[in-house]
């Protein structure tokens, strides 16, 4: 029984593209740029900063050795804030190119 599923996009096989190809290309370029930016933040917080853990550790903040603090808390905060920022930024890009979902 082929009912239309509520909330899902229609899956018709040969509808015309709804976004101009040139716009789509520009949109994807900017989206990729954001992806690489966030990937760089990910690499820095997930790996880069911890390469320096042995040299950061002699610095103590509120008792925390700094290298330990980054792995236990600092990087996690960067991940969380980074993701909210990413969601916001990507929404702006969607709207800039007029490709956001129809409400």
């Amino acid at each position, binding site marked *: 029984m082929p009912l239309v599923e509520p909330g899902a*996009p229609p899956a*018709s096989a040969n509808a015309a593209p709804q976004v101009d190809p040139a716009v789509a290309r520009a949109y994807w370029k900017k989206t990729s740029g954001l992806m690489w930016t966030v990937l760089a933040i990910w690499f820095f917080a997930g790996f880069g900063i911890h390469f320096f853990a042995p040299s950061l550790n002699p610095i103590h903040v509120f008792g925390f050795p700094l*290298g330990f603090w980054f792995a236990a808390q600092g990087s*996690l905060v960067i991940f969380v804030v980074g993701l909210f920022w990413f969601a916001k930024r990507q929404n702006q890009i969607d709207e800039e190119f007029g490709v*956001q979902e129809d409400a």
Partner: protein
Amino acid sequence: MSASTGGKDPFISNLNKIYAGYTGGFAVFVVLLAILEQMGVPDRIIGYLFVFLTIGVYAYIGIISRTAQVSEYYVAGRKVPAIYNGMATGSDWMSAASFIGMAGSLYALGYGGLAFILGWTGGYMLVAILLAPYLRKFGQYTVPDFLGARFGGNLARSIGVVVLITSSFVYVVAQIVGVGIITQRFLDVSFTMAVFLGLAGILVCSMLGGMRAVTWTQVAQYIILIIAYLIPAILMSLKVTGVPVPQLMYGIALERIEGLEAAFRAAGQTPPPGVTGFHTAPFIGANGQFNMNAATNFFALVFCLMVGTAALPHILMRYFTTPSVREARASVAWSLFFIFLLYFTAPAYAAFGKLEIYQSLIGQPIAALPDWVKNWQIMSPYGVPWINIVDVNRDGILQWNEFRIHADVVVLATPEIAGLPYVIAGLVAAGGLAAALSTADGLLLALANALSHDVYYKMINRNAPTAQRLIISRVLLIFVAIAAAWTAGNAGADILFLVAWAFSIAAAGLFAALVMGVWYKGTTNAAACWGMAVGYLVTFFYLIWTEFFGLHFMEVFGTKEAILAAARQAAALPQAAPELKAYAEALVANAAAIQNGSLSWLGSLFAGSGLPTDSVVLRGRVVGRLWGLNNISGGIIGVPLSFLIIYVVSQFTTKPSQAMQDFIEDIRIPKGGVRLADAREAVKE
């Protein structure tokens, strides 16, 4: 919460009210039990009430969320708001290992254990930027659905299903063991009995309502698990530092631990086996000096856990349930926030627990240890007592290396260490149970859906009517659950180390194909199939080979010195099989005849940088380590290999058709519909 279709669902619009009421109700329930305890109700009854009432609530949610609609069953009707999907993902994600085991691992490993904290949070960045929004736009039911639609049908779909089943099954067995351990301790029943009780709790949540029921149960479970995790830590912080913010205050505990460790060392003592003697120091060997091996293993583990997070189907499928692409992105951020609340606190548990033990137990007469220590000197399902006091030098005084504590006890015993009433211990048990049940629910659903939707509906009978598909789903759910419980009941706690394998297997099998499918238009069907198959097989084979045939592995990859060392380890193993022992002894006896392994040139590639291929004795086996890497990080080889194969094979095989390119265009852009390259891949309800 009746099965309404589309439009304004009164349940969805009242979510805040419903869950606020639920949280308040739970608080009242805890206070009520605390009062009962003061009135002299025995601990055992309190434990029963906690376990049965919380499971009863989950079952109630599961039953009222029953549904006969396919889209409700598989993707909760795509109506789950970002923040609630975030909570559901949080409890889907945080397993018994996170709730009970993580703080204990940090206790034992110190800085080294932070690899788990980093890996299990950072992976969500990859989910958000590389996969979740695009999978949501694709908009079907499962991860193999995407592989089938993008890579030309059943072959890609089947490989996806095999990877999914391998990684999820291993994982779900471990969750059921977790449920068994908690239920056994708090209900005082046999382990097998506990496993089947837990199983009933899991099935009643997911069977009638599929994803819809699992989602709303998981939100309820998240609320309980986070309350149960934070409250003892806050009270512990209050006890030790006088400030109820454990996340800020454990710096003080860390400083004191460093001081105590130095004092113990100065007195000529050594740490107990498996526990680091330098809690805060990164990348060190047993002597406290920098160790290249420790550093590479740390980063390799972080990498594998992150990539594995972004490839585990029970997590990815949660992002199919949001109303839009935009909500899917926001939802990943919320997921990470809710997970962060727990992982941010775990190192505090470890630090306060360690400080308390180092400060008030070490150096005391063994006969005069506090009651909580005695309460935990009982046998665990792992075959050693939870807390094992071994008076090595027989002087009656507790030394540093004489106090051996199982990782799980650090969280479970915190309420008693801090001198809190039993009701808090019951709360912790309820939280651990919520964590294990919610993860098991999500995994079982992922497994059963792969079998019912991807294998049965998409590959065997495309004309199956809705009612039949749902019946098949439910029957398979029961079968998978019983198979998992049977395995858990037989293997017991010995298989918990396999959980870490699930990450490497999923990472090597799925991650590259999913990412390349979205981000590289030129990825061909053949390339993706080869990439998934090789990544999966190489990783799986490598894990089995190094873990169970370590000596043989060394004979291929090791130098003659390394082979001799491995043979000596095997010969000295008390648990080794007689044939292996005899073989190893023969090798040792004839040491001069040992030749370098046939691939020892590969094994010695990084020997100059301090990373020779060697073997260690772990879990009662001789385990091989290529370039000194623990096999827990086996994905470090499989993931790049999979990417490389996909890229190279794509250059030599038939380019994707125009229709496929259009399909990729459509999933990249939030607006509009999705033009499938093959109309047969469309889901009908």
